[in-house]
């Protein structure tokens, strides 16, 4: 061979040695399954069995999803916020310090108290008691902090009795006062017209609002998966019927439908029954989106070769559906749920705000916001609008989370 004739070319050749970084094992295998891109194909050769690769290789789809999800900062943040909110759901009694129904006309519309953490340089959280006085001109009750009436706060204090997790009787609360009845002296977020403590009510409202969405979503998942599953797996006339049904539900304007259904809920029902009725109403309208997702995925998956391979191996219909198809749809359902939940929460809030959903004495975000329906409230007692903040925060957090989940759930996406 003419080996000797070869000379280095004069073109500016990149003779730099390979970047050691380039040879490191992949951080995640996310793009490995990309089937279209010319540039991406996963290869883990038998010869290169680095530990990190092995970890990736034996990672289940859910682990891969988790790794991909973890890199989505906003989604992680959203997830943490939502976890915090749901811990409020679980520990609402513990976080509240007053009974949400304890009202007292004397304490009507008190503004939030300022919390002082230090007293004379030493840590001693306290608030000052509020004295009230009627304004002789406006006849409004006005409140003043009394600097002599120092109310010391303590943590894990005793308060009203409740059952932790529904079955552990206890009377411990996050905060309490040393020597005073806390329900009558501490109002962190002020009070409403009837003198009920907003902070405590907000805790209970969070519990109701967030669970109503959850229950509604569970009902819609059940409906959506069954209907979408039937539609997607069997196709043909079943698909036809389900599709037309979904279109019918879609075509009905939502607000009048809600209003009609909510109005049909009898007045004399207990809070619990109304709660469930509202849930079901929301779910009945909400399932179509999930059914659409499930159907679409199933229609696509049914054509995948591994389904045919399972059939050819002699697998039963049951096995094909539950071992092959359902787990693959699951991740998409999770993502769809995280996007459906905020819609449900907003639905409940709006219904209750309009007076069509939950009604007092039940407490939910919507019910709380009812108290701030007029312009007077906005002008004079702005703290009544505080329940809007958790609504906004939760919806945003769910959107971030849903985005991240959706990206992570798509096994072939970047």
């Amino acid at each position, binding site marked *: 061979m003419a080996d000797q004739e070869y000379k280095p070319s004069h073109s500016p050749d990149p003779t730099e040695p390979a970047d050691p970084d380039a040879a490191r094992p992949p951080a995640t295998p996310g793009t490995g399954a990309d089937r279209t891109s010319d540039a991406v194909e996963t290869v883990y050769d038998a010869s290169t069995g680095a530990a990190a690769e092995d970890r990736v290789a034996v990672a289940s789809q859910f682990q*891969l999803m988790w790794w991909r999800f973890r890199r989505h900062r906003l989604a992680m943040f959203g997830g943490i916020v939502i976890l915090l909110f749901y811990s409020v759901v679980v520990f609402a009694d513990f976080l509240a310090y007053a009974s949400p129904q304890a009202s007292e006309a004397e304490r009507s519309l008190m503004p939030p108290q300022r919390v002082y953490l230090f007293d004379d340089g030493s840590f001693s959280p306290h608030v000052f008691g509020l004295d009230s006085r009627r304004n002789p001109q406006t006849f409004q009750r006005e409140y003043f902090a009394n600097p002599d009436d120092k109310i010391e706060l303590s943590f894990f204090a005793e308060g009203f009795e409740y059952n932790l997790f529904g079955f552990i009787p206890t009377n411990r609360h996050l905060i309490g006062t040393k020597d005073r009845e806390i329900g009558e002296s501490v109002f962190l977020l002020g009070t409403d017209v009837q003198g009920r403590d907003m902070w405590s009510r907000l805790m209970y409202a969070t519990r109701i609002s967030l669970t109503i969405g959850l229950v509604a979503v569970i009902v819609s998942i059940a409906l959506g998966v069954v209907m979408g599953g039937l539609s997607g797996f069997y196709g043909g006339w079943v698909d036809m019927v389900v599709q037309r049904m979904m279109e019918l539900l879609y075509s009905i304007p939502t607000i009048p439908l809600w209003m009609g259904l909510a109005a049909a809920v009898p007045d004399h029902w207990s809070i619990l029954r109304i709660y469930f009725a509202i849930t079901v109403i929301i779910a009945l309208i909400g399932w179509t989106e999930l059914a659409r997702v499930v159907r679409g995925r199933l229609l696509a998956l049914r054509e995948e070769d*591994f389904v045919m391979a399972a*059939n050819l191996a002699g697998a039963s219909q049951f096995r094909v559906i539950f071992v092959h198809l359902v787990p693959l749809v699951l991740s998409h359902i999770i993502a769809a749920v995280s996007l459906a939940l905020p819609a449900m929460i907003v639905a409940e809030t709006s219904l209750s705000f309009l007076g069509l959903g939950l009604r007092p004495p039940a407490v939910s975000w919507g019910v709380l916001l009812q108290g701030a329906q007029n312009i007077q409230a906005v002008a004079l007692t702005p703290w009544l609008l505080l329940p809007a903040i958790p609504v906004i925060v939760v919806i945003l957090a769910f959107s971030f989370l849903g985005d991240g989940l959706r990206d992570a759930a798509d096994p072939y996406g970047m």
Partner: protein
Amino acid sequence: MSANQQITTPPGDTRVIGDTILEVNSLKKFFPIKKGFLRREVGQVRAVDDVTFRVRSGETLSLVGESGCGKTTTSRCILRAMKPSSGEMLFHQKDGRVIDLAKANRSQLRPVRREMQMIFQDPFSSLNPRMTLLDIIGEPLLVNGIGNRREREDRAAELLKLVGLRPEFLSRFPHAFSGGQRQRVGIARALALNPRLIVADEPVSALDVSVQAQILNLLMRLQNEFGLTYLFVAHDLSVVKHISDRVAVMYVGQLVEFAETDALFHHPKHPYTSSLMAAIPAPDPRKRGIRARLKGEVANPAAPPSGCYFHPRCPHAKDICKQESPIFEEVEPGHFVRCHRARELKLTGVPELDNSGAVSASDS
């Protein structure tokens, strides 16, 4: 650094070509064309239109043709992933019984499925991303109630070794593997039940060219080792020439030529076969040149032309070709052609024993 060092000798071809394993007689598969709101049937796509051939045990029989010619539909009918419109497909089972796959129901098909497996084209779609290799390869064993967990694991490890993967990979998921490696997994799954007939649907066309040869070699090795019968469906004539004993060429749902590989490639008797071969660009810049290129497009299987389906594109068409549809007949022993002029035409195929190609000259 002689490049010739890499060329290996042909493998010891120890196969025994035996009796018929599958007889396909007048197989037809028509798809209805539905139109309008009431989905009224307005016509039919004759995807497979009267196909007859026999597969002998131990051989590789290839179905070739361009897209839409019905080769894939034929293979899906044989596997009964689709129900044929008419015709029979007689499968000779291991125990000597003969079953007509076309008429068998689900429970009758179950035992036959063990003897008949498939290798897929797309190595990504063919493996469930949620399952480990053990679950994937062990599935045929599991659903057929073969062995306990331990035994299935051993068998799966053994199968992995057989296809050239490490048994340690059993706990891994498909995403950890390249296209070629996944295709090996698919092959291992197809072998799990010790099938006799394997339908391979374009098993290398989705792979990188440098990996195709690995898979073709593997398929041939496994065939030698286990006496497998392959029904190979492909569009790439080079791959088909490489692996087949006999080749069936399809055009618009019909077989147009069927012969031993060498006879078909060196002495084609149907003008379509000949034009197909002429259309393949040779991997040799010194063999460039104007070839007789086929004009026009493949006929529409919903409205095929009169007479011979190929006549509008055929350089040798005569009046009879436009009027009468030719029959599929044996013009030479073992060489079937559907052409009015099969006996008179002298068609060019691939030159015989041509070793002056670029490949062998690469060391000059």
